[in-house]
């Protein structure tokens, strides 16, 4: 049975990371920015899984499970914060707030 080389997974994860970074820099809507963060998180996850593919102790797999949990918590809290910001300022674009300091 042939095995898929680790390098292919790394290419895909590099692409996902770069796309997430571009979304982070490009979009102004905060929900869009959150989606970019999720893409970056999943690119890191794919790297962990790809490297634990041939590892009998599977440490990367365990770490990626915990990364999944932390990512979900981050998403829930961030959306709650976005909701509260929208309730107070009627806008969720990142360039519509100016600091007072």
């Amino acid at each position, binding site marked *: 049975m042939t095995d898929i080389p*680790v390098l292919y997974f790394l290419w895909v994860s*590099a692409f996902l990371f770069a*796309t997430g970074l571009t979304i982070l820099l490009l979009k102004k809507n905060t929900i869009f920015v959150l989606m970019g963060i999720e893409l970056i998180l999943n690119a890191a996850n794919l790297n962990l899984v790809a490297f634990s*593919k041939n590892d009998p102790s599977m440490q990367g797999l365990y770490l990626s499970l915990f990364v999944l949990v932390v990512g979900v918590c981050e998403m829930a809290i961030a959306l709650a914060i976005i909701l509260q910001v*929208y309730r107070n300022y009627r806008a969720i674009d990142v360039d519509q707030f100016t600091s007072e300091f």
Partner: protein
Amino acid sequence: MSPLVIAFLVLALLTCGSALSLLWTKNLLHAALAMFLTMLGLAGLYVLAYADVLAVAHLLVYVGGVLILILFGIMLTNQTNQTNQTNQTDTASSKNHLMTRESSRLLPMSIGLSFFLGLFWLFTKGPWMNNLPVTGDSKLREVGLGLLTEYAFPFELAGVFLLIALIGATFVAKNHD
């Protein structure tokens, strides 16, 4: 080419293509759909990396949880365009007002492209070994045993963390007036 590699290519194309469309679109609902397809492709890639446990958890969490959360976020923070509101006669035929703003495309895309090329070069040059022995079966039993023995403390900590995040999110999102 073995069928495994063909399946990998299809899934990688799905993942990368829908990630690109997530980058390209300005409509939030289209972005949610693109993110759904990306997560689907990623789950398939996890299966191909022999991490089927993580793939199922990923599908449950992202498609079942995070996507619904994002859709609720889009609905609750929907800004209707005041300019289009006046001449809008029937809502059924008009477009939705979920178009978002973005900054100029040149600088972020060049930064992203250079990042991708740098990572690509770095990964291609890396000393990865491709001929390692394959442990090519489901690791469900090992993962379950490991989570309850060797990684029991982080596992319980993750449960407490989820509880804290749940309570915190409800507290932050509630109406504080």
